[in-house]
């Protein structure tokens, strides 16, 4: 019977099945400081070891300051959490890319960078954005701390098989520099909703996906969870194999694997999906979120919707939009391009890779950040930072008035000192515009890196299609 890519990966990892659930083998386990301390404690209490230290990799990203790394961490609770991860990795024998490592970075940025992420593998991490790794044709998903402990102890995870969801993206974007992968995924979430993918694994397919670079595919898979999906993936192709070739942790007989992946890792023709959705990329515009979940998003050319218009007869949705606009301090009918901003954040596991920074720098080059705006760039990893500096991007950003910082999750969730003050409005390349996400009372608008860069210059949102991006 023809199978989907997800089903092939799933089936090849099932160890036992019982009561409709499967025990799946986990090929790679990524660990960070926030969701792991209680898991290691659990191991200690029950006198258990980490089963496969060779398949487990850790870094610290959520809590780390993005300021000068030679200075001590002022926030004591953060410092304790970071120290705890160091201690746990040492005690249990796990490879750690610590705060001073040239490989430190956001866990979902460094996994692919180091070749830990591989096609056809299963990857888990105590973080919902683990779906990012699906861009390589891996089955990658976020888990809670109890499951982190379970995987540390057993290298397996027990779960019910998710349903399959095909999202076709076809058509040529009119201006691929202005209409980015971020705009594609926000357009999808806007249409299918934040629970549109619940219980499923999404496979992104179609000619638009084939055209995207690996980093762009990562942006799309990253936000699968924002549509409620357990994971999102893209079938690997030559771009995937080329991206990983020569990276530190890929297997020694890499080319043999590539031949196998090329042969096997695709959805068979005639395979059936449980659910299907198509997005035509020809006519999508740059996206800007205006509410408190990622589905509350509009084209940059539109006005803030009226709650009745947004709810389309659904009272709960209407009430949600009303509350969201109240929180965001926005009036229905306002043109999105009239919204003034206070802060700009370019970073996060969604949009902090080299290409993101290169694209944003094109807008910034030779211009100045609006005097009303505080703008920062937080590269996703030390390697991204180094590569960007070699290209002189740091200078472009700094000359324009951006802060150029050390790598980490930073203001995507504000667990470190990078936060919004109450009432501050931010154009952010991150993935969640939930209430208080970037700081209590802070107001987040999700946008692409080029849209964020342009907003920094103009002090309000602008349609980047009107700027010269070449």
């Amino acid at each position, binding site marked *: 019977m023809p199978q989907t890519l997800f089903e092939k990966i799933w089936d090849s990892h099932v160890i036992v099945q019982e009561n409709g659930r499967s025990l799946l083998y986990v090929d790679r386990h990524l660990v960070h400081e926030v969701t792991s301390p209680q898991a290691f404690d659990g191991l200690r209490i029950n006198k258990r070891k980490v089963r496969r230290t060779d398949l487990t990799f850790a870094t610290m990203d959520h809590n780390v300051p993005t300021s000068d790394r030679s200075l001590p961490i002022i926030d004591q609770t953060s410092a304790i959490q970071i120290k705890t991860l160091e201690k746990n990795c040492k005690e249990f024998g796990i490879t750690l890319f610590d705060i001073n490592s040239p490989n430190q970075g956001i866990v979902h940025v460094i996994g692919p960078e180091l070749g830990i992420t591989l096609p056809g593998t299963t990857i888990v991490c105590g973080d919902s954005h683990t779906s990012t790794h699906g861009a390589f044709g891996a089955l990658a998903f976020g888990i809670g701390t109890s499951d982190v402990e379970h995987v540390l102890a057993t290298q397996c995870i027990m779960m019910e098989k998710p349903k399959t969801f095909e999202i076709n993206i076809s058509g040529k974007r009119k201006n691929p520099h202005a209409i980015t992968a971020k705009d594609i995924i926000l357009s999808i979430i806007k249409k299918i909703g934040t629970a549109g993918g619940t219980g499923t694994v999404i496979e992104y397919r179609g000619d638009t996906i084939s055209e995207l670079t690996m980093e762009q595919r990562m942006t799309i898979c990253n936000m699968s969870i924002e549509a409620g999906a357990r994971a999102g993936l893209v079938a690997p192709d030559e771009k995937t194999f080329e991206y990983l070739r020569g990276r530190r942790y890929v297997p020694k007989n890499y080319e043999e694997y590539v031949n196998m992946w090329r042969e096997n890792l695709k959805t068979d023709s005639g395979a059936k999906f449980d659910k299907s959705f198509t997005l035509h990329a020809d006519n999508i515009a740059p996206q800007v979120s205006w509410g408190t979940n990622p589905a509350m998003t509009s084209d940059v050319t539109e006005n803030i919707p009226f709650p009745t218009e947004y709810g389309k007869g659904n009272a709960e949705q209407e009430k949600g939009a009303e509350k969201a606009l109240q929180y965001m301090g926005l009036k229905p009918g306002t043109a999105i391009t009239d919204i003034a901003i206070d802060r700009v954040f370019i970073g996060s596991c969604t949009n902090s890779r080299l290409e993101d920074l290169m694209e944003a720098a094109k807008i910034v080059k030779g211009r100045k950040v609006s005097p009303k705006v505080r703008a920062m760039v937080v590269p996703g990893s030390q390697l991204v930072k180094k590569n960007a500096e070699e290209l002189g991007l740091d200078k472009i950003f700094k000359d324009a008035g951006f802060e150029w910082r050390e790598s980490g999750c930073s203001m995507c969730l504000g*667990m470190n000192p990078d936060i919004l003050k109450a009432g501050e409005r931010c154009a952010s390349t991150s993935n969640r515009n939930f209430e208080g996400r970037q700081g209590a009372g802070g107001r987040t608008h999700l946008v692409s890196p080029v849209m964020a860069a342009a907003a920094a210059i103009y002090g309000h949102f602008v349609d980047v299609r009107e700027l010269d991006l070449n």
Partner: protein
Amino acid sequence: MEPFKKIKSIATPLDKVNVDTDQIVPKQFLKLVQRTGFGQYLFYDWRYEKEGIPRKDFILNDSKYKNSKILLARDNFGCGSSREHAVWALDDYGFKVVISTSFADIFYNNCFKNGVLPIKVSEESLQKLFSVKSEIEVDLENQSIRADGLSMSFDIEPHWKKILLEGLDDIAMTLLHEKQIVQYEKAHKI
């Protein structure tokens, strides 16, 4: 884990869709390295003014619901971040049951790992529960919810039911398959 017992309590109605885990427990409380004591941070930014003064208009601050063990929620409850702290906070606060029309996947899974029972019911049933003023009884063994003149059943996977009722350690259960895991590891190397 403590075995799950029959629960009888007044239910706290949280009338909001798409409640994300950032709201259930805000990020500033994720820095703790232990599992306990998160109840005081549950819905923190909705529950308190800036200065830590309880907000009068938030349901958890209504004394009527002080000892409630059941939370009534709306669609897509627990979406967003995978933080298990959200369930630790609900549990530590005293909620042992959450009833909604739908839950986000990771949150749903995390509940069972901590002895909290998430129950999915139809929109119609949820509406009825939202209007119940008296105590509600949740019986996992018989998969039933009862209240004043109201009785409904709910579905749950047998696997989760067993784990909750017996308070099982799922790592120990997985390790019963040690032989198969070793076999798999021998045959598959990457």
